[in-house]
């Protein structure tokens, strides 16, 4: 390739290189931010006092366990984190999220909702052993999932 043709090609490529570098930089920043958020969420979950829900009622779901994540949606819709179709719950009936190391229950449907026998506030912090009634669903808050006492060291 003669000199001028190369010169033209190199001139065009200059802009391509800058574009690629910009893509790398902003891509890295965007992913860093996203990764940071996920890690923070994971840390929040790891620090929760309760990590699981054990369903006590209705009969069809009794004994089922669900782990909690950073923002757990409970409802009758299939895509909820705690899906309980064929109950009286709405699609997205309530959510349990992390706040300062506590798992906090938030629901708009407080009329038929009870936490440990009492009417809950807009947001209620849950602890180990708390029993929650929502419509016809009842579940208990647990510290850990069944079968989880001592996890073997994964690094061996």
């Amino acid at each position, binding site marked *: 390739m003669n000199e*001028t*043709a190369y*010169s*033209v090609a190199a*001139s*065009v490529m200059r802009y391509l290189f800058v574009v690629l570098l910009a893509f790398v930089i902003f891509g890295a920043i965007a992913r860093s931010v996203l990764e940071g958020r996920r890690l923070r969420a994971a840390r929040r979950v790891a620090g929760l006092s309760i990590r699981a829900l054990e369903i006590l009622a209705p009969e069809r779901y009794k004994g089922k366990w669900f782990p909690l994540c950073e923002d757990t949606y409970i409802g009758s819709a299939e895509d909820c984190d705690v899906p309980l179709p064929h109950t009286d719950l709405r699609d997205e009936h309530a959510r349990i999220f992390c706040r300062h190391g506590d798992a906090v229950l938030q629901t708009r449907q407080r009329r038929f909702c009870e936490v440990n026998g009492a009417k809950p506030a807009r947001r209620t912090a849950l602890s180990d052993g708390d029993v929650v009634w929502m419509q016809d669903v009842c579940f208990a808050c647990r510290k850990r999932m069944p079968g989880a006492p001592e996890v073997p060291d994964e690094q061996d």
Partner: protein
Amino acid sequence: MNTSRNMKSLLVAFILLFALLASYLVYVVDLYGDYWFASPYNTRVTTQKSRVVAGDVRDRNGTLLASSDADGARVYPNDKTLCLAVAHILGDNGGQTLGAQARFARYLLGFDAQLDARLEELLSGEKRRGSDVYLSIDAKLCEYAYERLDGGRGAIVVMNYKTGEILASTAAPSFDLSKMDRFASGEYTPEEGSLVNRVTMGRYTPGSTFKLVTAIAALRYLPNATERTFRCTGCLAFDEKTGKLVGDASKALDEDGGARDGYALLRDFDGEVHGEVTLEEAFAVSCNNAFAQIALELGAGKIKAVAEELGLGGEFVFNEIIAYSGSYDGGDTDFELAWSGVGQHTDIMTPMHMCLITCAVANGGVAMEPKLLYETASPGEGARGALASEAYKTLLKGNEADFLKKCMRLTVEDGTGKKAQIEGYTVCGKTGTAEVSARADVTPHAWFTGFIDDAEHPYAICVVIENGGGGGAVAAPVAASVLEKAIELLD
């Protein structure tokens, strides 16, 4: 033991360091980039010359000043006087003199070429052409100014004080541009000292034009400077050995009026005695006596401070030209201080620096940066305006500039600068007669620096004629005729 917090603050420090790095890079390349690129040591420029046909250099009206012929060699106009007049400002093509051709190599050699120009070169198979450069000077004005120097040595510069454009810059003795390609081999030896651009690099004793600086110092540091009067007795006497001022000057004079043994005198031009004068009057008649008293009253420190604020002793960093600044040293004794106040002793000024100060006076205290580039035109594209006026520095306060304008107006109206008057326009200025030797047979340098006080014709000028004689007698009429020509040509 809050390691987390410490690390976070250190992280902030790191980010700031990197930000500093990036911004310094941008800042320094923006400020010095062209200067580094145009450095005579930059061989990239030389290698590019073999790849690209250099563009034309023209003046603001399009008059051709330099172009490349079919073989790529540089050709200059046939008009010999024109070539000599613009030789310094244009500069040679080999980097020996740092004129426009070296400075704007970036445009002339197509370093700023867009992609389509390179593409065109590829398709046409011909050598690429650089951009054409239009300078802000008016070639005819330069030629006229050069002719007015009439074979003597000296420098003339005309600037637009509102925009900073250099309208004319010429220096003599000059050199032959067309022969400069044979300079390196030694075949062509220009006249000694002719390669120096006396406008920007000619370091001359300023003589009475330096009183501008002293006057500014008086305005700033002497209380009531505009109203009080000074007593000019025609002669100040100093003890020859110690340099101290002698109170009674009559002791130092002998019968003929010369200096007695053991005494040194400071006199006015032609032994004139001015009596009681205000600062304005002293300026207009260029009274050495009064200004020497002012200098002695201020002291070297204050004058030096003002000089530094005006740029003396410092370094000019202009984008488009290289110019040396003047220098000032107050001396150690009263005698030296007194003479330094009237522009003698070791005072040095360049015509460009003097013109810059004059421009500041004319422009309300703000000196605009000297600009030489008017337009560029890439091949295939039309002309692109490249003139970007910017203020260089505010040298004076508004009221100081106004007062000095008054002084300079009086100088031309009724003082030493009468010969600089132009019909129909108000010319303001300051003359200077700089003694350069104690020998009687060596004539002083003639200086004139001034401007036209008119918004339609904002032209400032500085004229230096080496060994020309009296500033008012020799330099002022030259300045008047050049300014008249400028009005004629630039309308």
